[in-house]
């Protein structure tokens, strides 16, 4: 198992800068999730760690050793890709044996057998061992490709959106299994995804990438509760954090132009009072109740079973609130709402950076 560090990594493809001055540290045995939109540079980061790409500048350390000149084989990493990349024409067993059978590092036959059996047991694919890979379902294929990663006991597991091609039910099941597997193996995982639910539910730590910049790293809770900027705030969470422009006056949030006013009880830093701000509030911290201070109109109601997501219209702004499913709300109904004044995040309107993080 290993500790990974990326130092000032920049990667340029032609005229496109995929990564810029990326610094990243993954502790030994950590499940690290790299979260970002398509094209943010997640896969590039993964391929750099795997040794499939060379950084334009910067260094990569595995267990404190600079591996910049090492090929993929020497780095001893395992890679699971979205497209499974199983070897066609072979059975599941042959696929699992593949990494062990290479002449370079001959593993004794009975050990191969034992390792394959153990991996198959772990992933519950024992009944598929003699089957050809083209007769497998998507979920089974992905299990086999994870199996091919774990038979080898690599130092690091790299996973490039391994669950994205699966249907929702299976994705949920494998999500739990993967997390469980990582805990049992005590392995270092670098998991790349665009799905914030995967990131929040699986990661020990999450790194959010935006256009080649690592915007924020932290535990899922830190990222969720205390986003570094409006990008993270709107990317993480479903529904995302409400972002409303306004300013702070006398401990009250004033939403311009004079749409509504609500109390703010968070920490106030100097200079917060006299500049344009963006207020961020999570939908679950918006309360709809009869005696609340601000009137609004219900624009839309989404019923999710356990809860309802209500979109409110307040002047020119829209706000989302999650309310218990038992709450009776109709579209175009007039309601009143408030927010939890302690949970309001402040962002600088121009830079988008949270005031809690800046300075």
């Amino acid at each position: 198992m290993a500790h990974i560090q990326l130092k000032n990594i920049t990667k340029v493809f032609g005229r496109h800068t995929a990564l810029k001055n990326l610094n990243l540290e993954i502790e030994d045995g950590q499940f690290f999730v790299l979260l970002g939109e398509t094209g943010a540079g997640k896969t590039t980061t993964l391929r750099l760690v795997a040794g499939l790409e060379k950084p334009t500048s910067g260094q990569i350390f595995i267990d404190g050793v600079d591996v910049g000149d090492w090929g993929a084989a020497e780095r001893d990493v395992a890679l699971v890709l979205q497209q499974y990349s199983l070897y066609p024409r072979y059975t599941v067993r042959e696929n699992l044996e593949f990494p062990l059978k290479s002449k370079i590092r001959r593993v004794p036959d009975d050990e191969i057998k034992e390792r394959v059996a153990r991996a198959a047991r772990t992933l519950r694919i024992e009944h598929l061992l003699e089957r050809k890979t083209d007769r497998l379902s998507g979920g089974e294929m992905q299990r086999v490709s994870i199996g091919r990663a774990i038979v080898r006991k690599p130092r690091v597991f790299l996973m490039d959106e391994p669950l994205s091609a699966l249907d929702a039910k299976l994705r949920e099941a494998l999500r739990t299994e993967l997390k469980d597997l990582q805990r049992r193996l005590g392995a270092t995982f670098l998991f790349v995804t665009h799905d914030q639910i995967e990131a929040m539910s699986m990661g020990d730590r999450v790194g959010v990438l935006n256009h080649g910049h690592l915007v924020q790293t932290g535990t899922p809770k830190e990222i969720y509760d205390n986003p570094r900027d409006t990008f993270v705030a709107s990317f993480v969470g479903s529904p995302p954090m409400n972002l409303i422009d306004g300013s702070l006056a006398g401990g009250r949030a004033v939403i311009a132009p004079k749409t509504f006013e609500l109390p703010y009880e968070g920490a106030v830093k100097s200079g917060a009072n006299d500049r344009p701000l963006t207020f961020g509030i999570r939908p679950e911290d918006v309360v709809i109740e009869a005696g609340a201070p601000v009137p609004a109109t219900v624009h839309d109601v989404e019923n999710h079973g356990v809860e309802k997501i209500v979109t409110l219209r307040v002047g020119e702004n829209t706000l989302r609130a999650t309310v218990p499913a038992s709450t009776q709300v109709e579209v175009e109904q007039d309601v009143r709402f408030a927010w939890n004044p302690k949970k309001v995040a402040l962002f600088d309107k121009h830079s988008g950076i949270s005031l809690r993080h800046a300075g």
Partner: protein
Amino acid sequence: MATAVLTTLDPKSRAASRGMSDLAIRNLFIIPTILFLIIFNIFPLLYSLGYSFTDFRASGTGQTNFVGLQNYRTLLNDPFIWNNFAITAKYVIVSVVGQVLVGFGTAMLLNRSIPFKGLLTTLLLLPMMLSMAVVGLFWKLLYDPSFGIINYALGLGTFEWLSNPSMALYAVAITDIWMWSPFVMLLSLAGLSAVPKHLYEAAAIDRAGPFYTFFRITLPLVAPILMIAIIFRTMEAFKTFDLAYVLTSQPTTELISIRLYKMAFQEWQTGLSCAFAYIVLIMVLAITNIYVKYLNKVKER
């Protein structure tokens, strides 16, 4: 099935205004070809089967007698004919193996991003587009012991390529390899570029060495298309005539098709040569069948 392939004639077209139906147009295009095939292929094929049981001589005016299987018996008991078969087999093996090695090797070299790849591929395909007889003629010049460029380039002095009985067959095979390796290369290139890149990456991650990767990933995936190339080249090599005929007239290069030609048009043993042609036909069919069986097995896996 047949009706699904046919498209309906546009009622506004000129053909329709002349009162032609879909069927009439189809016949107009297909019947000449079929007639041509019947007259020049099917009819001679069947007619020669008849001749193969007689002692007919196309040059003579003598009586033609039915001799039953005598021609086949004569041929299959003739050690010289068996020698022709042995020469042909040797030629086929040397030439096809050479073409596969050179063609597949070139394809492996070309299957990466190199500058002028398209131009290079096109240039490499040129030999294939020449006429066999022309290739034969100028390789004869290249092989020439006194002024040929091959001896000059290799510093072999006056090495006799074509008049040396033990070398001549290889000289013909080398020419054939030069000419037809591009064909194998082209098909291999198509097969190689169809191997997904992520499989190679997965293999690199799995710490597979280059040979292991080649034999476990590349070769199995290219095998079906390579088999097709081999089938084509074996059939062609089996019936090689012009190249060997133009290049040399050594007894050691007397391939079955040359023997057949001599038997039919120099010795005028028409009945006997018809029987010979049938033996060759059956052999080619048998070999092709083995290959096709194997190809299907490879594809199934």
